């Protein structure tokens, strides 16, 4: 446990010091993007990993927040007001979507989230008077939280890192809380949980709303980073990419989605600069991961490490 704490401190120090080492803006911006997607993936994993509810519409919360924030800033509510309204609006949409999607379980849940996500996308794409369709909307300028200027690449990275750290800590605490245990119980043994007097539906719905809330925070960071939102950011591809991050890294572990976000974002950026066949590659990674690595990287590596550390223990158990 202590070793873990030291490792975490070293990692935190390294992340904070990153802008001093990496002075190239491109790579620093890439790091900010990774943090944003990692937060989105971690929030989705609350549903996928801890709740056992595979959602294919999670990017819609990123989009709802980003669009709402942009529109409200345009209508003159000010940065803080727009941010608050956007997150509240998107979380409320999450509450509604949760009610609808939780009418079904398993594949039905997946289908309904997919349909809802596509509807959000369709509205963004078709409602020209509001969203300007395919052209997307510009966000005027990054805000100045507490008077701090976050317009440069390093300052924005630190801002994103701070939000990311707070969010991930809160989500991590949540997964360790009685609520987290109840959520996992509802995933594994819904009938027993009901017998014990838990309201399984309510637990799963709350998880959905919380996932939507943290996804909305990621959406806010997204629009601050890009200063632009278009339907492409909330297409099915995006929702699938985020889901792939969680599954590739390992949905059963807390760190998995973060590792997945790092890998997918890096591969996407590297590949996109050489060839424009990213979607084929995305599809191929999907197929390969599901066929050959169903539990993802982090649990897989952990298993390997455990075997490497205590090689004698496995035959003992077998005997």
């Amino acid at each position: 446990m202590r070793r873990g704490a030291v490792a975490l401190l070293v990692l935190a120090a390294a992340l904070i010091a990153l802008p001093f080492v990496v002075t190239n803006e491109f790579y620093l911006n890439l790091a900010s993007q990774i943090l944003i997607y990692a937060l989105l993936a971690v929030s989705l994993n609350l549903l996928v990993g801890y709740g056992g509810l595979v959602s294919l519409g999670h990017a819609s919360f990123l989009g709802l927040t980003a669009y709402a924030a942009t529109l409200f800033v345009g209508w003159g509510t000010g940065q803080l007001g727009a941010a608050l309204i956007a997150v509240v609006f998107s979380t409320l949409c999450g509450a509604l979507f949760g009610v609808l999607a939780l009418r079904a379980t398993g594949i039905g849940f997946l289908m309904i989230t997919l349909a809802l996500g596509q509807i959000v996308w369709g509205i963004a794409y078709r409602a020209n008077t509001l969203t300007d369709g395919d052209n997307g909307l510009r966000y005027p300028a990054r805000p100045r939280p507490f008077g701090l200027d976050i317009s440069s690449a390093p300052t924005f990275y630190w801002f994103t890192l701070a939000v990311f750290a707070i969010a991930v800590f809160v989500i991590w605490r949540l997964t360790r809380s009685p609520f987290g245990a109840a959520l996992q119980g509802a995933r594994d043994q819904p009938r027993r949980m009901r017998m014990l007097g838990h309201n399984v539906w309510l637990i799963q719905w709350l998880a959905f709303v919380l996932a939507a809330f943290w996804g909305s925070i990621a959406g806010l960071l997204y629009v601050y980073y890009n200063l632009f939102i278009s339907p492409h950011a909330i297409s099915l591809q995006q929702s699938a990419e985020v889901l792939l991050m969680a599954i590739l890294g390992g949905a059963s572990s807390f760190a998995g989605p973060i590792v997945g976000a790092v890998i997918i974002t890096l591969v996407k950026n590297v590949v996109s600069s050489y060839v424009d066949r990213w979607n084929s590659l995305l599809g191929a990674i999907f197929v390969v991961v599901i066929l050959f690595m169903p539990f993802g990287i982090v649990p897989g590596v952990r298993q390997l490490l455990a075997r490497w550390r205590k090689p004698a223990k496995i035959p003992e158990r077998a005997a």
Partner: protein
Amino acid sequence: MQFWIVQTLNSIAFGGLLFLLSSGFSLAFGLMRIPNLAHGGFFMLGAYFGATITYFGGNFWLAVLGSGLGVGLIGIVFERLILRQLAGNVQGQVLVTLGVSFIIADLCLMIWTGDPWTVAAPAELRPPIRLGGFAFPTFRLVVLGIALVTAVALYLLMDRTRLGAMIRAGVDDMEMARGVGIPVSLLFTVVFCLGAVLAGLGGTLGAPMLNAYPGLDADMLPLALIVVILGGAGSLLGAFVGSFVVGFLYNFGIALFPDLAYFILFLPMVLVLVFMPQGLFGRVIS
């Protein structure tokens, strides 16, 4: 008046097209318990195959047949080589169909470029039918007719043949069906292939109305999903009713409130989910 009549007719014709898209999707979903998320991709492939065959001078009906067979073949290969590996892992299967849908979309973009391909309706069907002062597009009526014939054929297949009885048994209780010796896994291939053939045919038949363009798959897949959410998975009648409901809503939505067309689709889905989560005619309890 002209507007309403023409739009109503267009809606019915579009509903027929949706039935070709979603009947196979719904049957495969009912039997295999998975929505094939590459189904929109199959439809788009059908449209591109049709566009290619007619581009090289092929007859339109030959193109319909060719794309049905071509897409059906792809469906068989996909089911046998990939989905089969994941038997029992429903979630994995769905995600694999999603992965394959991205590959199909990207390959289509690579092969047929980003520009839309138009397909001309067969020459003999281009002049509109005139009736009491109104002009109806003949081709759309023919598509509707094909959809209705398909619906009757599927009904007879499901209701009157041994194969259909086996499929219904598999949809209702797979374990028991296996237990009495029905080759359910072979039925998987048959039904999946049937869905792919229908999507392929539908793609080419729809191409003169919709064109073949990148993103056609993403436009059609949600419609198929909503049809199945409305009608219930595995129900032919549900797919039939759902297709025409969605056809009407979508067509009138686009004509009257273009900004809100998707939102209008959302309403019946919400109502059905809240009051009848199994869908209107659903058989599968998932």
